[in-house]
């Protein structure tokens, strides 16, 4: 690309560019360049990683838009090098020489990939970002500064200077200042360093804290930063950032607790009806959740095969499918088995456990023993950045919202509908309800089906955060019973408090003692609690309580 033009001018020009580049690498002089020189290209492609990073920093410092194709080729693994001399850019079938711009008929046999590791990738991102710094689009500039912030090189300082002069947006201006400070942390001049530390101390970004901590590093016995007062200032800066970060950490713990709580709640809600209200010890509850998850999987596949345009929204279609599938199985269970066993808890327990084994084996036979792949749609991936150190993932937020909706829906059904009235009547006093004309067996079936259907909804939600396999349900049956018993049998609101309480307790213990110990501690807590208060958190008082 270069030579045709440069040769038409004078050799001198190219020599000036050469030496300018050299100067740039050495002392980061602010210079505008016409094009990356052949030497720089070669250094980028054939040099070792040190050379590559150096070359990239030089390109970043020059912010030369003509380097863009080269950078893109490097980023896409489309840059090849032959014998450490010739640098080629591959674009589909087209092979171009990066230096001369000549097109080659085919890729030579001995062309090797230019391998970029994380270190080179980081420098590459910085180079890209440097090119974006002057983009007219605010969002592009914002992203560019954000990228540069992590590990800026001193070579880009002049560029940042320039960007600050033309930047109008106060937020980006602030970030530019921060980035410049970060880049100047190892400046030779003590005053510059001190100023940089002071600026960084006002940040609320964990990455800046890490940069400051770098100043306190020891190299053998000697500190890397020789000046005591600079180290002191860095320490103060770190403390200031830490105190700002603490709030995000606390909020994060509470959020993860609520998120786990919402999952426990969803898993337990169905059981709160079948066990809590109806008194059926349903050991197959976990499998109803598992069926819901598999229903989601099947829906995903069907939509993928027949309506690929709707694949992004398959969870919305999966919800009713999961509800109906699990609900139907629940109705069948009730009609065929449980109906005959009311009032015989031990037999119910054994029978439903048997059903759970049958369901697991059936799923294994049809879908195989391995986990199946339920994909997160794009809108449920990633998260929203609330604070510099707090990202709330979309899938967790969606599940919390969903759990809330299910709770509201269930409350409405139980309190506002005729069916809910009957269910409550039957739970409180079966004989009396029967006497006044409620068809108790029908109500039992419908209520059990409702509980099972809600378990199916839970399965659909769980499929977004956990592995879907035949054993999925077994992991949740103990948790579900724990929540319902702790909350107080026969009480819906108790279940909600118990689920959220257990979730938050578990997550705080996990942060403090690790996942394994936290699980044990929670179980011990529940055992002790149930010993002291067998009726659970909230007990129904009054004379209607079943003995």
């Amino acid at each position, binding site marked *: 690309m270069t030579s045709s033009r440069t040769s038409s001018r004078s050799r001198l020009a190219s020599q000036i560019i050469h030496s300018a580049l050299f100067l740039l690498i050495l002392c980061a002089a602010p210079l505008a360049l016409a094009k990356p020189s052949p030497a720089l290209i070669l250094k980028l492609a054939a040099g070792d*990683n*040190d050379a590559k990073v150096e070359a990239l920093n030089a390109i970043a410092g020059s912010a030369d838009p003509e380097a863009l194709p080269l950078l893109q080729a490097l980023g896409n*693994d489309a840059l090849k090098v032959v014998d450490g001399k010739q640098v080629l850019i591959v674009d589909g079938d087209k092979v171009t020489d990066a230096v001369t711009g000549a097109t080659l008929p085919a890729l030579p046999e001995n062309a090797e990939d230019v*391998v970029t*590791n*994380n*270190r080179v*990738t*980081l420098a590459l991102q910085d180079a890209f970002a440097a090119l974006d710094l002057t983009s007219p689009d605010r969002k592009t500039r914002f992203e560019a500064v954000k990228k540069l912030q*992590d*590990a800026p090189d001193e070579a880009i300082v002049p560029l940042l200077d320039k960007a600050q002069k033309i930047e109008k947006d106060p937020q980006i201006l602030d970030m530019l200042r921060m980035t410049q400070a970060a880049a100047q942390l190892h400046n030779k001049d003590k005053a510059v360093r001190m100023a940089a530390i002071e600026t960084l101390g006002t940040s609320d970004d*964990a*990455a800046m*804290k*890490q940069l400051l*901590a*770098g100043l*306190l*590093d020891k190299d053998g016995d000697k500190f890397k930063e020789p000046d005591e007062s600079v180290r002191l200032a860095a320490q103060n800066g770190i403390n200031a950032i*830490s105190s700002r*970060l603490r709030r995000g*950490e606390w909020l*994060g*713990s509470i959020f*993860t607790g609520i*998120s*786990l709580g919402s*999952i426990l709640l969803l898993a337990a809600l169905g059981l709160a009806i079948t066990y809590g209200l109806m008194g059926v010890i349903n050991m197959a509850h976990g499998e109803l959740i598992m069926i819901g998850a598999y229903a989601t999987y099947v829906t995903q596949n069907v939509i993928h095969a027949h309506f690929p345009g709707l694949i992004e929204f398959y969870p919305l279609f999966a919800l009713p499918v999961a509800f109906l599938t699990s609900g139907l199985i629940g109705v069948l269970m009730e009609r065929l088995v449980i109906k005959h066993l009311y009032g015989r808890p031990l037999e119910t327990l054994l029978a439903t456990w048997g059903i759970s084994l049958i369901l697991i084996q059936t799923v*294994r036979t049809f879908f*195989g*023993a*391995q*986990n199946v*792949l339920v*994909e*997160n749609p794009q809108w449920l*991936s*990633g*998260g929203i*950045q609330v604070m510099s*150190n707090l*990202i709330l*993932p*979309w*899938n*967790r937020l969606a599940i919390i919202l969903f759990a809330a909706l299910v709770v509201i829906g269930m409350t409405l059904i139980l309190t506002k509908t005729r069916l809910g009235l009957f269910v409550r009547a039957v739970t409180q006093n079966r004989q009396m309800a029967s006497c006044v004309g409620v068809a108790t067996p029908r109500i039992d079936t419908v209520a059990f089906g409702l509980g099972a259907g809600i378990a199916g909804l839970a399965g659909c939600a769980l499929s977004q*955060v*956990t*592995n879907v*396999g*035949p*054993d999925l349900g077994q*992991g949740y049956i103990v948790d579900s019973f724990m929540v319902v018993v702790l909350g107080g049998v026969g009480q819906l609101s108790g279940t909600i408090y118990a689920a959220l309480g257990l979730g938050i307790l578990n*997550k705080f213990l*996990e*942060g403090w003692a*690790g*996942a*394994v110990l936290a*699980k044990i501690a929670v179980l011990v807590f529940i055992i002790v609690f149930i010993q002291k208060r067998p009726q659970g958190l909230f007990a129904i008082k009054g004379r209607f309580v079943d003995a």
Partner: protein
Amino acid sequence: MQRRSFIKATAMTIALATAGFATMTASAADTIKVGVLHSLSGTMAISETVLKDTVLMAIDEINAKGGLLGKKLEPVVVDPASNWPLFAEKARQLISNDKVAVTFGCWTSVSRKSVLPVFEELNSLLFYPVQYEGEELSKNVFYTGAAPNQQAIPAVEYLMSKDGGSAKRFVLLGTDYVYPRTTNKILRSFLHSKGVTDDDIMEEYTPFGHSDYQTIIAKIKKFSSEGKKTAVVSTINGDSNVPYYKELGNQGLKATDVPVVAFSVGEEELRGVDAKPLVGHLAAWNYFMSIKNPTNDAFIKKWSAYAKAHNIPGHKDKPLTNDPMEATYIGVNMWAQAVTKAKSTDTDKVIAAMAGQTFKAPGGFTSTMDAKNHHLHKPVFIGEIKADGQFKVVWKTPGPIKAQPWSPYIPEDKGKKDEPEKK
């Protein structure tokens, strides 16, 4: 067509064997039985199922060439269901009832520890294909996976190097059982020797099948913000890796900030994960599917054809190979070579013939079975995850390295002999 009908026959045999009719199939005299002991259900099925198929493919291949000692090989597949005591039970059944000549199996170290007494008591052979923590040397086991000095130590050295990001702080994250605990003990001692203090090391464990990694990721973020450059060493095993990597992506923990190097995550484990947010995270293995050489090309082609012919879920549409598959493949072939050399399937004769066996491995080097210590000499590769779930090799050893089953970083190991105790 003959080949296809043969494959069908084999598949039938396997189906029958799994169903528990093993004793009713062809009489034992005209075949050599080979045990396959991998979890086909439960938390480890994600990793182990494909190893079962790899053994079957290698056996098919040997049978197609006429079998061994004039006899066909007959696989006996059992499913220990990620249940460690069941491993021992199934191993005993394979050796005592089915009279297998050799067994290929196990992934987790806890399952290997569970079957070890059985193999020693009944003097049978086990080929173990997965990287592990060392600290073990049994005359009845051949370890075709990596010892710590062939995977864990080079990986951490890479993280500490300039190219790996000059990490100064380490999070050692694992599933709670013997392999991660021991590996982390070795790594902690190794890091001490490099001047990393306990303040800069965080160790965290989760139970098998753990699926909620929110707190752990938050902890890693906090730990990494407290000081110098941080890296995570993950020894998480089984299907927990899927929620772990999903959470990592959702929480935006980028490889350029906090690189994660994993020892039990390969192409197969990443199948169910969107790899785009994970680009740049690392894995250390002795083989990657992306390695370019003629042996590997042939290996991948063979596997793709096999997966298609046998309708292996997932692999029939998107065939993947990984390190433990390569190690399994090396194991079966080396065993076959040793049997040919010993002219017998007798355990002791095969053990003697195994010493010094070589095999041109898909990894691009000739793997040699050490003359004494039952481990392979293997090269080490470090790869970065690419957006398509494959790995880009960013570092490798110049050649194969000899395994050190007894780590020099564990003081009690001093003076232990580099060969199994003779009984």
